């Protein structure tokens, strides 16, 4: 490979990212909750040597409206817990990273941390995580233990307005991520000693209370699950505005952004850079990978992808809208676009297939070979962990040194 390699991930969600994708030719709408459906998708992604797949998890029932439930019956509804789905896919694959989304507003930080650590154990070092706050006030009633801000039609027009209204939830989410990272570190790597001579299974001095006390909750620790293979699974987050950029800068290893062109990518990366600076993160010690999200429809024949998308738009009763740029075209066109955008400073892309399995296969069998021909994408996996694919080193436990090193992140 010449030059820095391009990183590629796919975002898997239901029947694909077009709301009418389940009605597309080749869709398997009756199988969206079966193991076989997901096994086919993730093995296809692995065949394409992709860095990782992400698995969405709305927690509540899906809705066409960003901020409230709907009563639509013509779109996919119903979903599985993404951490469990990722774990299920782990033994069926060997290299690809598995990155589930979880809600962090209504769940228990301790359970989340051990779930992701367990995914890392089950996949032998291929776990990532996308913590997501709950933007729908209605989700709170599912749990019944708190309320969260009800966004208005006015709010949802602008990502900055959304983020401003949800700022307390982002602050709490930052605490959740911090707790998870501390729990992953709470067992030093060599805590298990099995010392028959003294009868000790572990060296108890290598397990640490994390003693987290925040505004929203406290967690004592240590974890019940030993430090995972990657040390810390890869934390990723999707961000569209200044508050979430700061959230990413504070606790993520990788951020997904949604530019619409090269100039937009430059502008966003500059904002991310400012957030990194505000937080005081040292990117040399702890790099933040930047991926751009794109929603894609791909066909070899020019014009076919656009026609396919219009048919689905028609079925759905309106043109597809997305936070991310929507691309229709050939794998060659997409390769051109990715290579031009990346010069803005992107490390890679997360592609959201418009329809599944069609656009996934177009990525793995059309786009990937095209990128390989251009010498910018791997032709074989050269690592077995997700950190390995991304070129991220395995961190030491923060507790592993007597002299406490100052943490790069202020604990909120």
């Amino acid at each position, binding site marked *: 490979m010449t030059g820095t390699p391009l990183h590629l991930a796919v975002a898997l969600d239901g029947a694909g990212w077009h709301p009418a994708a*389940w*009605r597309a030719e080749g*869709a398997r*709408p009756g199988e*969206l*909750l*079966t*193991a076989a459906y997901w096994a086919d998708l993730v093995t296809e992604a692995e065949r394409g040597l992709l860095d990782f797949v992400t698995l969405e998890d709305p*927690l*509540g*029932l899906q809705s066409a409206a960003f901020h409230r*439930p709907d*009563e639509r*019956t*013509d779109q*996919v*509804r*119903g*979903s*599985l*817990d993404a951490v*469990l*789905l990722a*774990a299920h*896919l782990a*033994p*069926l694959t060997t290299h690809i990273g598995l990155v589930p989304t979880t809600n962090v507003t*209504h*769940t*228990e*930080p301790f*359970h989340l941390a*051990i*779930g992701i*650590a*367990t*995914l890392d*154990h*089950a996949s*032998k070092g291929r776990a990532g995580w996308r913590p997501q706050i709950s933007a729908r006030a209605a989700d709170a*009633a*599912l*749990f*019944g*233990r708190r309320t969260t801000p009800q966004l208005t039609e006015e709010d949802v027009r602008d990502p900055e307005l959304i983020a401003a209204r949800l700022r307390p939830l982002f602050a709490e989410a930052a605490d959740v991520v911090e707790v998870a990272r501390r729990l992953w570190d709470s*067992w030093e790597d060599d805590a298990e000693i099995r010392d*028959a001579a*003294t009868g*000790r*299974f*572990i060296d*108890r001095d290598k*397990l640490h209370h994390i003693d987290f006390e925040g505004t929203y909750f*406290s*967690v*004592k620790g240590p974890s*019940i*699950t*030993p430090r995972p293979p990657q040390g810390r699974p890869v934390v990723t987050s999707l961000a569209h505005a200044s508050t979430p950029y700061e959230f990413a800068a504070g606790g993520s290893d990788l951020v997904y952004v949604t530019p619409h062109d090269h100039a937009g990518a430059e502008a966003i990366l500059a904002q991310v850079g400012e957030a990194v600076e505000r937080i005081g993160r040292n990117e040399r010690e702890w790099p933040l990978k930047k991926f751009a999200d794109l929603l894609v429809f791909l066909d070899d024949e020019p014009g076919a992808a656009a026609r396919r998308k219009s048919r689905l738009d028609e*079925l759905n009763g309106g043109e597809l809208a997305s936070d991310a740029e929507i691309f229709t075209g050939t794998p060659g066109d997409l390769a051109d676009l990715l290579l031009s955008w990346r010069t803005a400073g992107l490390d890679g892309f997360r592609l959201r297939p418009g329809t599944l399995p069609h656009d996934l296969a177009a990525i793995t069998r059309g786009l990937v070979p095209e990128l390989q021909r251009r010498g910018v994408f791997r032709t074989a996996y050269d690592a077995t962990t997700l950190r390995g694919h991304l070129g991220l080193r395995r961190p030491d436990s923060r507790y592993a040194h007597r002299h406490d090193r100052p943490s790069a992140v202020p604990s909120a």
Partner: protein
Amino acid sequence: MPAAGKKAEAQAGKKQVHLAAQLPGIHNVTVWSDSRSRSQIAIDSFIRLAQTVERGKFDFFFLAEGLRPREHKGQVYDLDVVGRPENLTVLSALAAVTTHLGLAATVNATFNEPYDVARRLATLDHLSGGRAAWNVVTSFDAFTGENFRRGGFLAESDRYTRAAEFLDVARTLWDSWRDGDVRADPKAGDFLLPGAGRFAHRGPHFDVSGRFSAPRGPQGHPVIIQAGESDQGREFAASDADVIFSKYNRLDEARDFYRDVKGRLAGHGRAEHELKILPTATAVIADTDEEAAAYADEITRAQVSPQTAIAHLEAVWGRDLSAYDPDGPLPDVEPEAESLVLEGHSVFRKGRGETARRWRKLAEERGLSIRELIIEVGGGQTFVGSPRTVADAIDHFVQSDGADGFVFVPHLTPGGLDDLVDRVVPLLQEKGVFRQEYTGTTLRDHLGLNAPARDTRPVPGERPVRSEKEAS
């Protein structure tokens, strides 16, 4: 036993044995110092044990739970295996490498919320094609609560009321989608029926409403397991569970427990075969009874090391006893009933004064050292002998109504049930008391449980809102 259950068994000739396996968690069963002992965390260990017992046609594979490492005298307890993965995550992985084996997770009702747990269990049921089970436990202590948002501990008297309401909400959620609510009809453009998943519940512990995002799983409801032994716990099992675990694996005690628990079922309008009673058990197998006895002795002594003996005594005595000789007599000092030296372990919480008196009496009568006493009260191994001896004993135990089967816990991870599967199961099959092949695909099939039937209620236009207890 009511007519239906009796008839089914008369037809089959003898009572059928149910077998489950547990990858040992946090206690001194695991002889981790044995050179054959492997990781209790690595997924390969779980896969190996699960595939072994599936080869043996076991009903299910079970994982216990503990949400904070135990602490002894203020420090993490270090003599036993420490550390375990998250149950449902491991079992979801195992669903990919097994085809029939039931997958049972312990999930606490105190430190969780029903929406999340119901959804995760429904997910496991979907991913496994109908093999999920939930062991509903009710630990409540403030020590564990320090890891959770609520700081979440409960008054002891509230733990079962919360658990019962928790389960009620979970069932409401599982019933909020009916079979067939997912239409997925691309021509008509109907993905689902209107209102699918709508629910509401209001009660003392939970006030929740909205729409549940997990459509009904293959089993409708996962199999419900319970492991309480108090009066409250037994009532909870009799009214709400499909399986109850117990620690009673000596035939006389087991028969008392069995009679008591089965006797409670009629009061809840249930038949005796609707609740399976499965004590925890171990098996030590060798070519001859003599060799097995010697091996069992060796295992038991490894399980109760001198340090472990002192630690167990300290847990009951509530004080530091490290100055005492494990091979000497019991301490001359009295227990401190109020202080707790072992945190995170339910067994040593209650009645310690009474336990200490009983132990002292036993040790004096029999002239036992500290370590000998701990070995004695620990109960040793359940089944010891040649494959024939063990098969006969298991069969006898079940036929004489000590149990409906057992949850076997191996002393070695993950190879510790190889002999049971390869040498004892064939003998049970020969006797006609254990299946030759799986006859169904779901865990409910294996356990012979029909409830709840697949939901066949007519679908109304508007979903009824179930309020507290309306449905029970």
